[in-house]
């Protein structure tokens, strides 16, 4: 990675946790490698983040055949004090472009870009 300037320029508005949660809302049946590709982090980091999201109650994992299926708890608030009274549902619907975020079991595959 390039020095100083590159790093200074690489900031984003969402954390990796935020991005992984958005990607799960976009596709609750996504594989870890798809989530990691979309979020731009390693699969290992993605798995750790999913565990964090699960521990905090944002997602629940269930096994469907050989795949993971995620249910997103849209009623949960943001974690930061500045947004604590806001639910994540509308945020995820907006950013994932999936307005039944977390509830739709059948998904329109065309929603998933890349």
């Amino acid at each position: 990675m390039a020095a100083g300037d590159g790093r200074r320029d690489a900031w984003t508005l969402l954390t990796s946790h935020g991005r992984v949660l958005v990607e799960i809302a976009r596709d609750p049946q996504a594989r870890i490698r798809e989530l990691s590709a979309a979020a731009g982090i390693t699969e290992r980091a993605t798995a750790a983040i999913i565990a964090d999201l699960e521990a905090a109650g944002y997602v629940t994992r269930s096994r469907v055949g050989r795949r993971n299926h995620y249910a997103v708890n849209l009623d949960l608030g943001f974690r930061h004090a500045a947004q604590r009274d806001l639910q994540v549902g509308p945020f995820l619907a907006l950013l994932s472009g999936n307005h039944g975020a977390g509830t739709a079991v059948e998904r329109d595959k065309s929603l998933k870009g890349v």
Partner: protein
Amino acid sequence: MEEAEERRRWTLLTSHGHVLVEIARNPRARVRDISAIIGITERATQAIIADLERAGYVQRVRVGRRTRYVVHMDNPFRHAAQDGLQVGPFLEMLAGTSTLAAAVTPEEGITPEDLMVNPVVALPDPLAAAGAGAEPTAMPPAPLAAPEPPELPGSPAGGEYPKN
């Protein structure tokens, strides 16, 4: 241990995201207020604001001795995963500034122009349109936009700043 602490304290937004939301919430916020809300140092806040400014998300405007920010709502997100999305709806949602609410907060005196949204256009009164020339309707149409906020008594320009 430090890593464990960091893992426990994760959030969905980065500090850049939080600062941008706070500026959208209050375009006249001071650096020290923003830093207190977000829980980062003033120095970090300042650096982030400079980043946001360089990337075109905010513009600093000097008003008297204070800084006011103009947020460019039509700017896109920076990460490829959010390609094609503008930050406006995101900020409105997180800052709780529906464009109207932001426009009429009297204590801030924020105008729609501050937030770079379309100014509210008064809708034609449907009753008046239907019966042109008929008797006036009982209720005058309520103005959608608030009038200019009155000057706060006893607060000269920039009065919130103590004299140095």
